[in-house]
C-alpha cells in the first residue's frame, strides 16, 4: 500500500467570474452564469490531487484524477479546464431536474456520481464555491459516502493508507490524520495551482469525458431540484450601488472623527 497509485475525485464547479459584476435572476434567485469559469477555489483542490498523483508517477502509473461537476451543459467548461490542467478524466452530471437544487440535493447527486467511480481513495474539494459559498457540500458528501472528513486543509500528505492534513487557525495549527478513503477540503493556502500548458490543452481533447443524467445515477427528479431541497432562497437582493464615501477634512480633529467613524461601524 506504500505510495501505491491513487484514485482521486476532485469536485469542480462552474461559477460566475468574480472579475465581473454578478446578477441574480428568476424567482429562485439563481445566479446569472453567462460569464463563468472554473471556480478558482477548486483549482487548489485539483492542484492538491495532481501533486499527490504526480509524486506517484502520474497517469502512467495508474493514478486517476476524476474532475466531477454538476451543472447545466455549460458547466462542462469547468471539467474541460480541469482536463487541460491535468485531470485524467471528467464526469459531468447534467439533468434539467437538478435546477434549483440546494446543497442537500446537490450532495445527494454528487455522492451517487462518486459511487459510480468504484473504490475511490480520496475526494478533494475546495474550501467553498465562489458563488453560493455555503462550504457545506464537503461535510454532507462525507456523511453520505460514509467517509472521514478533514475540512479546510492548508497542507496535505498521503502516506500509505493515511492522509495527514494541516489546519491553520488564527492562533494555532493542528495536524489531523484520517485513514483512506477520506474526504478533504483544501484552502487557498494549500498550494500554487498550475496553469495548463499547450500540451495539456491538446491532450485534454483525447481524455475521457462522461455525462450522466439522474437516471444514470439511479435518482429521480423528485430527489433533487426544488422538491428535493431542504432549503429555499426566499428572498435575495443585489447589493445597493456603492455610495460616495465620507470625506473628513482635517481641521484639527480629523483623528477623532476617524476613530468615531470606525467605532460606529464596529470596526474597532
Amino acid at each position: 500500500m506504500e505510495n501505491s497509485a491513487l484514485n482521486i475525485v476532485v469536485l469542480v464547479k462552474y461559477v460566475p467570474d468574480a472579475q465581473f459584476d454578478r446578477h441574480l435572476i428568476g424567482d429562485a434567485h439563481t445566479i446569472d452564469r453567462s460569464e463563468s469559469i472554473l471556480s478558482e477555489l477548486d483549482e487548489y483542490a485539483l492542484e492538491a490531487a495532481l501533486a499527490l498523483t504526480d509524486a506517484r508517477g502520474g497517469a502512467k502509473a495508474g493514478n486517476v484524477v476524476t474532475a466531477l461537476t454538476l451543472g447545466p451543459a455549460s458547466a462542462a467548461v469547468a471539467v474541460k479546464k480541469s482536463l487541460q490542467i491535468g485531470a485524467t478524466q471528467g464526469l459531468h452530471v447534467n439533468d434539467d431536474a437538478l435546477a434549483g437544487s440546494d446543497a442537500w440535493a446537490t450532495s445527494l447527486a454528487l455522492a451517487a456520481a462518486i459511487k459510480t467511480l468504484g473504490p475511490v481513495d480520496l475526494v478533494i474539494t475546495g474550501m467553498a464555491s465562489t458563488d453560493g459559498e455555503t462550504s457545506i457540500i464537503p461535510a454532507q458528501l462525507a456523511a453520505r459516502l460514509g467517509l472521514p472528513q478533514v475540512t479546510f486543509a492548508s497542507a496535505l500528505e498521503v502516506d500509505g493508507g493515511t492522509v495527514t492534513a494541516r489546519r491553520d487557525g488564527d492562533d494555532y495549527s493542528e495536524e489531523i490524520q484520517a485513514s483512506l478513503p477520506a474526504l478533504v477540503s483544501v484552502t487557498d493556502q494549500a498550494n500554487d495551482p498550475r496553469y495548463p500548458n499547450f500540451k495539456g490543452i491538446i491532450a485534454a481533447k483525447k481524455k475521457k469525458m462522461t455525462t450522466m443524467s439522474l437516471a444514470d445515477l439511479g435518482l429521480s427528479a423528485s430527489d433533487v431540484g426544488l422538491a428535493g431541497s431542504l432549503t429555499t432562497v426566499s428572498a435575495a437582493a443585489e447589493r445597493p450601488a456603492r455610495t460616495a464615501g465620507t470625506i473628513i477634512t482635517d481641521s484639527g480633529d480629523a483623528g477623532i472623527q476617524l476613530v468615531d467613524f470606525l467605532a460606529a461601524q464596529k470596526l474597532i
Partner: protein
Amino acid sequence: MPNFELNEEYQALSDMVRDFADNVVAPVSAQHDAEHSFPYEIVSHMGELGLFGLPFPEEFGGMGGDYFALALALEQLGRVDQSVAITLEAGVSLGAMPVHRFGTQAQKEAWLPQLTSGAALAGFGLTEPDAGSDAGRTSTRAKLQDGEWVIDGSKQFITNSGTDITKFVTVTAVTGSTERADGTVKKEISTIIVPNGTPGFTVEKPYGKVGWNASDTHPLTFTNARVPEENLLGERGRGYANFLSILDEGRIAIAALATGAAQGCVDEAVRYAKERHAFGHNIGHYQGISFKIARMQSRAHLARLAYYDAASRMLAGKSFKTEAAIAKMVASEAAMDNARDATQVFGGYGFINEFTVARHYRDSKILEIGEGTTEVQLMLIARDLGL
C-alpha cells in the same frame, strides 16, 4: 467564406496566456520597467507553461503547436507587457527558429531543447552600426582558418544577447565574395553560431532605451573570435536569404504583439473612461472620448484580422510575405496610435511612468522600427505591386 473564429485549443491557449499575463506578469511589469531589470522569474514561468516551445516539434522539447499559437500568446502578453512579449518573440522566432529551420540534426539536438524549454535564450545578430534596413551591407567578416571561423566586426541592437541565460548569438557575416557576370562583386553572407563566452566575443553595455526597458538589448563586438567550422548554420552563402525568411515569419509575431499592445490600450482606456469623472459625468460619456476609444478598438480589430490572415496563409503553405508586411505595419501603427490616444484619455496620469498606458506610449514606438521599419514594409508591399 473565411472564418477567423478560434478553435477550442487556440481559444484555451489564448485564455490561459491572458490569465497568466494579468495575474503573474502585470503585477511586476511596472517594477521591471522602472528598474530596467530582466524578468528572469517570468521567463522561467513562461518556460514551464511551454510558451517557448509552442511552434516546435515535441522531439526537441517543443509543444507541437504552430506559429499561430505563438502569435496568440504574444498578443495576450503584448496587452500588458511588451518587454516580456518581445523576450518571448525574439527567443522563439529569432533565437530558436533559425536553428530549427536551418540547423543540422546535431545543432538541433545541442541547442533546441534548452531553448524550447525557456531555460536558455539565443540572439539573432543581423543589424550592424552601419547596416540596418539595408542589412546586406553587413561588414562583419568570418574567415575559415584551420577548421575555425575567425570573426571580426560588430552588431547593433541585439535582443536577448546578454542575459545570464543567453547561450549564443547567430550572426550574419561575410564569408567570401563571387564575381557576377557583369563584373560586379556579390558578397557571400553566411550565418554562424557564436556561443556567449567565446574569447573575442564581447557583449557590450546595454543601451538606455526609450522603452522595452525590461528587454535585454546590447551592441556586440567580435575581435578575432574563433568558433568551430561546424557552427556554420545552414548553407554557406545562404545566410542573408535565410535570415530574411526568418524575418518574414517574425513579422506575423510582431504584428500579434502589436495587436495586443493596441488592445491593451483600448482595455485600459475603456476602464478609465468609465471611472474618471469630469463636468458631472464620467469622461466616457463625452463623444470626444468615446469616439476616440471606438476608433482605437477599430484599429486593434483590423490589426488582429491582418495578422490572423497572414498566419493562416503561412500555415496553409501559401505565400504570406506581403500579408505579413501589411500586418506588421498596420498593427505597429495601431499600437502607436492607440498608445497616444490612450495616454490622452488618461490625462496627466497617462504621463506617469508606472501607468500601463504610459509604458505602452514609450514601448510602442519601436514596433514601427524593429524587424523591418514601416518604410521597409512599404517597400515590400510596393515591390509586390510591381513598383
